[in-house]
């Protein structure tokens, strides 16, 4: 029983990280049809921004305080990078989806290489607040506290994005654009401005995912974003390509499946079972994957 509780909570925590990583990807894909390979670099940028910020702040500050400032720095950098990439690189290739993917691929290669050149390929340890490194006992299971943080952040992000989508004009334009971009334009709405905002939002979410994932891993490394990105892709596909609620559900399922399979089968089987899950979803309901609304 306590094992199961532990697995459920760690699985949910992992799913929360996947959701934070996938939410921006899903929004960007849903609205713009852009598969953003550079999302991994955005995450890496966020994790390094937080790591550098935490290192630059006075060591006398509590770790949680430095992490808080680091998170803000990561979100801000992610948003700025997303904005610049959209305006400078993506926008001129509007409607050339393959070229847009290619540009983000080039960016992901160059970005990881640049980080590797400056900080080296090896993981660098990050400070973790004491409380987040500890555990809490619930139903006989010793649950790592950091998973609760990831869950709370993911829930707040999910709620915030749903509110944005359903309560604001920007959200209305995004939801309409996910359904039919061309018609939004044909109604006289400048959909390009919305693209830029969504890319910046996606970058901010990626920055946040980067910091949290480096907390989860206990270190920053150039390749970190890329490995999280692959699971984020799987989550986006299972979740229905562009549906925020679908993404959230898929993230939870993927996180749980991975943890349970790793425990009950063998370590490493979890990753494979996630890919099997993807294959199963594709075989059972390929039509629902062509795009949906939040």
């Amino acid at each position, binding site marked *: 029983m306590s094992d199961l509780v532990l697995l459920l909570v760690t699985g949910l925590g992992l799913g929360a990280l996947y959701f934070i990583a996938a939410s921006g990807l899903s929004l960007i894909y849903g609205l713009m049809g852009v598969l953003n390979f550079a999302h991994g670099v955005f995450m890496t940028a966020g994790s390094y921004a937080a790591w550098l910020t935490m290192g630059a702040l006075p060591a006398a500050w509590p770790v949680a305080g430095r992490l808080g400032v680091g998170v803000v720095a990561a979100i801000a950098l992610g948003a700025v990078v997303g904005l610049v990439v959209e305006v400078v690189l993506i926008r001129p290739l509007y409607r050339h989806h393959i070229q847009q993917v290619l540009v983000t691929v080039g960016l992901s290669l160059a970005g990881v290489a640049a980080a590797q050149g400056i900080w080296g390929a090896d993981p660098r340890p990050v400070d973790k607040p004491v409380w987040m490194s500890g555990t809490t006992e619930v139903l006989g299971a010793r649950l790592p506290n950091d998973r609760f943080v990831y869950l709370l952040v993911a829930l707040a992000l999910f709620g915030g994005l749903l509110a944005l989508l359903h309560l604001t004009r920007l959200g*209305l334009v995004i939801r309409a654009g996910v*359904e039919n971009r061309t018609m939004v334009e044909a109604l006289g*709405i*400048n959909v*390009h401005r919305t693209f830029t905002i969504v890319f910046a939002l996606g970058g901010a979410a990626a920055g946040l995912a980067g910091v949290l994932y480096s907390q989860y891993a206990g270190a920053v490394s150039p390749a970190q974003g890329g490995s999280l990105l692959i699971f984020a892709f799987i989550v986006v596909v299972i979740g229905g390509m562009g549906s925020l609620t679908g993404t959230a559900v898929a993230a939870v399922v993927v996180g749980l499946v991975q943890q349970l399979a790793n425990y009950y089968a063998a370590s490493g089987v979890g990753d494979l079972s996630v890919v099997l899950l993807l294959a199963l979803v594709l075989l059972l309901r390929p039509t629902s994957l062509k795009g949906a609304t939040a």
Partner: protein
Amino acid sequence: MSDQNPSVGGDGAVLPVLSLDDVHVRYGGSHILQGVSFDVPATGVTALLGRNGVGKTTTLRSIIGLAPRTGRILLQGREIQGLTTARIVRGGIGYVPEDREVFGGLTVDENLRLVDPVRGVDADVVARLFPDLVPRRAQRAGTLSGGQQQMVALARVLLRENALLLVDEPTKGLAPKLVTEVADVLAEVARTTPVLLVEQNLPLVRRIADRVVVLDAGTVVHRGAAADLVADADLTRELLGVSMRREGAA
């Protein structure tokens, strides 16, 4: 050009609201429009006719910049080449596409508020022309009937001031009663705003159109008064390949 009324020429003749001059559209190797030229006068309904696949929809799409084109298109005397679709539309063109293309996942009210953030179904024009939509404001547009969706598609462009409306086959797939309703709305709208209408339903064209432009194989093959074309069964058959089968549908 007179300062008071830019749409009136020096000789007192009404300038066209829209004029196309040698417009070509090429799509992935096919040459769809091959030099289309015609004017849309600033009043009444101009019907754009032709068999399936001659480029009627492409003509409308090229006007609002959704199809890549060459040639000149003037809206109220100004070239609109190079403008984005959103700019062209805000410049005064309302577009009602074939198959309606309402946002099925959005409510009726959201569909309308997308265009006018404030008024939605509360706008006078909606309440007056489309009373059926008012009780359905919170319903998802995707669950509406075809006729109701067409109402939403028309209502959302009428929320804005338009210099011209482009309406693509508004009665396609509608029951005869709804065809009449849509025709009534278009006739009403055309009293204040010029309309360029693509339509297959000839009785409807006879009822509400003033002029016709007929396309064939990507070029204009006939221009003239709607009544003349519709009255001439041989010409109708020659140009459109149809006879007046759907008599009484409007």
